């Protein structure tokens, strides 16, 4: 393992794949690896079907396909949905180097999660990485800069292509890319739709909304849930407190339905986002249970707010774009 690491020409090219937004990218980056978010791609899912059932979501199946065909040093999973948990086992079964971080389902116990992160640091060191307080602080600073800039970009004009790209390149290059995009970003006054759901790495789907004449706001795992965090107020003094900082940062980020937040945190977050939107579209990946479980109740609450609600189910690779276009355009016609 160490040999592999030392002989890599650049640190950045040693890719550590991850799937979930709860993954502490900063620690992976500070250890000298490139945190690379794995998505389903345009390629058909073929080899993965030998190891995973077709009733698993196409993001999980697509990610496995990608893992089987691409060159990753290792993969990091965080406890989120059941499918990702079982995917951890499948990745191990097919011979991948895997570490699973037990991110608590019930948000609150920071002490426990700091211990889990300490174990993760040891794992990264066993993989040939090196985590120091200084390097971790540098990574934290860089990711925060990226997140703040993405927030700014999305407040002007959401750019999903950029949001997805920055999850697969080095954070410094990502900051430069967002800086470039910020130079040309323009705000548009159009009917606003909130899209809510899990992942959608297919840019064409977002384009359909724009082509129909909508401006976008999102609660999407490949969109603003990547960069929406509430940052702890303390300044870390050593490695342990830096890990505590990361634990709190990820505990109080944009909530995802795989976690239990006190006081209906997830629903309140979505309802708040919907306030200034003309309509809400649930953009759900087929078989994504956490999102589908929430859908009926959330839909009811949004309708009580007077919002028009539509459901679009996705399956990757997305092929029926015209049918999705009809739904989106029909929604536009309804609110007009």
């Amino acid at each position, binding site marked *: 393992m160490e040999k592999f690491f030392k002989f890599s020409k650049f640190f950045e090219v040693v890719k550590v794949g991850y799937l979930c937004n709860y993954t502490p990218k900063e620690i992976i980056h500070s250890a000298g690896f490139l945190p690379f978010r794995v998505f389903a791609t345009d390629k058909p899912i073929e080899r993965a079907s030998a190891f995973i059932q077709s009733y698993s979501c196409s993001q999980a199946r697509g990610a496995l396909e990608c893992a089987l065909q691409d060159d990753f040093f290792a993969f990091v999973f965080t406890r989120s949905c059941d499918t990702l948990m079982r995917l951890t086992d499948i990745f191990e079964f097919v011979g991948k180097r895997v570490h699973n971080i037990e991110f608590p389902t019930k948000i609150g116990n920071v002490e426990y999660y700091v211990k889990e992160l300490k174990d993760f640091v040891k794992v990264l060191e066993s993989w040939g990485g090196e985590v120091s307080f200084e390097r971790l602080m540098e990574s934290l600073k860089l990711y925060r800069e990226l997140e703040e800039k993405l927030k700014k970009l999305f407040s002007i004009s959401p750019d999903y292509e950029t949001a997805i790209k920055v999850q697969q390149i080095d954070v410094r290059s990502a900051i430069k890319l967002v800086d470039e995009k910020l130079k040309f970003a323009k705000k548009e006054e159009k009917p606003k739709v909130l899209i809510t759901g899990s992942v959608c790495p297919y840019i064409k789907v977002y384009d359909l909304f724009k082509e129909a004449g909508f401006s976008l706001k999102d609660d999407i795992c490949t969109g603003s849930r990547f960069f929406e965090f509430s940052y702890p107020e303390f300044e870390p003094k050593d490695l342990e407190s830096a890990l505590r900082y990361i634990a709190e940062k990820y505990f109080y980020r944009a909530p995802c339905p795989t976690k239990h937040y006190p006081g209906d945190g997830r629903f309140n977050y979505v309802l708040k986002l919907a306030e200034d939107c003309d309509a809400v579209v649930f953009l759900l990946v087929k078989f994504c249970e956490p999102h589908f479980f929430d859908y009926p109740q959330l839909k009811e609450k949004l309708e009580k707010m007077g919002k028009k609600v539509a459901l679009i189910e996705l399956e990757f690779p997305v092929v029926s774009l015209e049918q999705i276009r*009809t739904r989106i*355009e029909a929604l536009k016609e309804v609110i007009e």
Partner: protein
Amino acid sequence: MISAGIDIGSITAKCVILQDHKILAYRILKVKPDLEESAKEIFEETLKLSGLKREEIDRIVATGYGRARVDFADKKITEITCHAIGATFLIPEARTVIDIGGQDSKVIAVENGKVLDFVMNDKCAAGTGRFIEVMANALGLKIEQVGELALKAKEKLKISSTCTVFAESEVVSYISAGRKVEEIIAGVCDAIAGRLMAMVARVGVRREVVLTGGVAKNMGVRRAIEEKLGFQVIVPEEPQIVGALGAAVLGTK
């Protein structure tokens, strides 16, 4: 004001020419792989039937899944809105529109000519005209025979697979078991109605219910839907042109 509505569907192209709330002419043709050519052909043929010239048409509105390919249209509007408008134009009391097309089916809640809510099945052939086509082929029937034959059945066989391919296997298995063709096809019609009811439940059903699309002509499906709803539905005289009619009506506004 004279307007034309063109509906390019997955199996057929439809065109309606409307003048002051009166249908002057309409035409239905099989759609060709070249959708632009199909759109021109259906428009020209309907124009010929109406006795009008191209320059006499004030507005052209395109709808259906091929609407984007109708370059000469002044406006493009989704089939969801067009079916709602077309159904309300014909039956002002319409509150729920069930449209069963060749490639998809939709349930639309309407009021005062406005779409309140809709659901659409487009991911699989279950609950669409294609489902009937595949089953009719397996049974060696012409599509036009299906409805009438289904009405003759004394018993409806159960088709439990949602997937069209597996449902076809069930049909083949019933044929091998020597079951009557009318009983099998009645089961097929019932299966379509069953799939639609799941969509109806999501939107909520309010009377009057109007059935549109090519499959609305199938008496077997119509009866199965009425049995499941527990009341009669309204089928316009020519249910297949309702989308094109809605587009033409919108062209006048």
